[in-house]
């Protein structure tokens, strides 16, 4: 893959916590999905917050307030272009059906090239009593997904999200510490049935290969035999 014109810069690969300036839609239905860093950069330089932060009450109020403002806007002005949950009202069943494509050997047909396939995956959190489902195509970055997951499971939080600060993929021992702790980390099962840590591949690749998500304790992740060295090596991929 071609480089994005930036040398590999330590700051870019550092996995930061919130978005600069706060706010940011996350979750479903939000209309502010743009992040200041989204301009053309891809891959690891995207924020990957492996620590699911419980948002403070102030953040929540701010978000719900801004959401209301979106609702009561001047009706002549259409909402921002980010996908709104459940609109247009095409049934999930139909979306999934249209998304799967079988290899068509003969004629090249003008098939639905632009349909944004939904990518519904189940999300479970160890210890939480119920599963959730998310449509990965609703999010543009790992950060968005992470925010949404935090919101989703916040009612079940046991405070085990800790405040250790950001996860540094560059620092193997720190990563090992995290994975040895009782901090929660998000993991996913990919197309080959392997369980991986969320954040190891570029976002689009992740969306295409993720079959289900599981938020588990770091110590368990180690137990599943995740190969850290691969992650560390992959950080040095050049695009």
């Amino acid at each position: 893959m071609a480089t994005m014109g930036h040398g590999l810069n330590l700051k870019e690969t550092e996995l930061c916590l919130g978005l600069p300036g706060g706010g940011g839609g996350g979750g479903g239905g939000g209309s502010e999905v743009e992040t200041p860093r989204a301009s053309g950069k891809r891959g690891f330089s995207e924020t990957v917050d492996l620590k699911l932060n419980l948002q403070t009450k102030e953040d929540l109020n701010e978000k719900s307030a801004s959401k209301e403002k979106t609702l009561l806007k001047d009706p002549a002005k259409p909402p921002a272009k980010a996908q709104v949950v459940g609109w247009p009202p095409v049934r999930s069943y139909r979306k999934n059906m249209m998304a799967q494509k079988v290899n068509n050997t003969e004629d090249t047909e003008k098939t639905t090239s632009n349909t944004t396939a939904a990518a519904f995956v189940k999300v479970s959190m160890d210890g939480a009593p119920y599963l959730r489902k998310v449509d990965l195509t609703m999010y543009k970055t790992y950060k968005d997904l992470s925010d949404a997951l935090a919101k989703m499971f916040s009612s079940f939080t046991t405070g085990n999200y800790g405040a250790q600060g950001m996860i540094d993929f560059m620092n193997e021992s720190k990563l090992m510490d995290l994975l040895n702790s009782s901090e929660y980390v998000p993991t996913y099962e990919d197309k080959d049935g392997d369980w991986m840590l969320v954040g190891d591949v570029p976002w689009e690749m992740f969306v295409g290969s993720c079959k289900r998500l599981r938020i588990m304790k770091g110590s368990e992740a180690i137990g599943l035999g995740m190969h850290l060295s691969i992650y560390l090596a992959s950080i040095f991929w050049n695009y």
Partner: protein
Amino acid sequence: MQQQQKVAALSYSFPEEVLEHVFSFIDSTKDRGSISLVCKSWYEIERWCRRRVFVGNCYAITPAMVIKRFPKVRSITLKGKPHFADFNLVPEGWGGYVCPWIKAMAVAFPCLEEIKLKRMVISDDCLDLIAKSFKNFKVLVLISCEGFTTDGLASIAANCRNLRELDLRESEVEDICGHWLSHFPDSYTSLVSLNISCLANEVNFPALERLVSRCPNMHTLRLNRAAPLDKLANLLRGAPQLVELGTGAYTSEMRPEVFTNLAAAFSGCKQMKGLSGFWDVLPSYLPAVYPVCSRLTSLNLSYATIQSPDLIKLVGQCQSLQRLWVLDYIEDAGLDMLAASCKDLRELRVFPSDPFGLEANVALTEQGLVSVSEGCPKLHSVLYFCRQMTNAALNTIARNRPNMTRFRLCIIEPRTPDYLTLQSLDSGFGAIVEHCKDLQRLSLSGLLTDRVFEHIGTYAKKLEMLSVAFAGDSDLGLHHVLSGCDNLRKLEIRDCPFGDKALLANAAKLETMRSLWMSSCSVSYGACKLLGQKLPRLNVEVIDERGPPNLRPDSNPVEKLYIYRTISGPRLDMPGYVWTMEDDSAYLE
């Protein structure tokens, strides 16, 4: 006084058996309900001979209550999640579990023959229980259900000797093994209807062929996408009596013998009236179905990604068509042809091929719908996705089709105005409700103010279900609907500026409806609590993924709200993000 005695005497003069016999001709739930209200003895007689029960909301009543009142039920229909669950607005784990019902009925209704579920969660254990508890079980219909795997289906296949119908329409099934079908014993021959279109993987095809060919009463067969086209001909030859067929993927390597075999097989299907399936269509194979086209009354091409010319060629042959589901690839030209050729058309659904694209990818506009409304006098049910609309078009459609009963229009971009006048579409939808006096179901879209709701409240007196999104200016809109629509049963609203006032002012109305859904509106937690306190026969459920609503001010709007009438009190199976507003005021947590 004398009059009452006369009536009493009359009703006592008929032996129960006679009344029962008379009642046996009355099947509709509504009529049965009316019968039961005449007098106590009719209530008693009726309840002992009611065979079919329809429960529109599984939380409105408990299994025990149903069993107590109707001890001899043979068929039950249950609906679970709210309609907006189809569009991913209801988080996972919300509820709709059928297990308590099955467990109770396994004991109380040993003669149960039919179970029909919609938007419910059913486990393999439940399926197993069904398979083993009801000796004369005949019909299992699972529409948009989830929670089970092919193992559960294997149990049904293995144990239900009298099964006639197995319909898994649009359900989410974990497909573990295609061999579940082989669990139907060789001696089993009573299958009439099989719909496995939702299964992801290939089923054991030889087993399917054997099953189909040994069941002489097979009437409906809907295959899944993985069913190969080149095996369809053989299957059809084994069941030429099929009336409804759903193909699998309609594509294969282009081989002449596959085509001729298929065409010949279709020629042999003299009873065929309905076709569906058609995933991944290879247009050159379409002519194989031409032999059956003139008799078709129902055609579902809503997964067929073929272009207008091919669609026109196909549909043009189907002059008997009553129902057409198709993608917007049909375009205005195709709809013009439909209007000209299919004079018996009753129902049209046009789905979007590219719902998330920013611009139109097909030449389908309001004109197509206008044409069909002009050319098809029996058209009464419409679902139409498009990107532009005018008040003039809606007006024309309304005047052309006063017999419209279901009208669902989805203009893809929210708040889109009339593209010619740039005004709201209030008057267009107003014309629909004014002229279509029998309108039962309506879905709105486009730019709409409170005025459209004023029209709806004034004219839509027969309206039973209304879906609203991104519309209205104030509580007045909601008030018009709640106060004006006398027959409203289901109301679902999203992203509208409706708050507390209209709800509280029309609280009593809510007890006359099945349910109300409001999401991304402005209803406060305080108002929800109030409704919950004042109306004990309603369950007021707040769905909020931000955490307990009592941690935020009462004035804070809730994310989602689902209110439904019930005689069984608050439910006990709610997930962590749903709170019921109780009679006993706020939470003690």
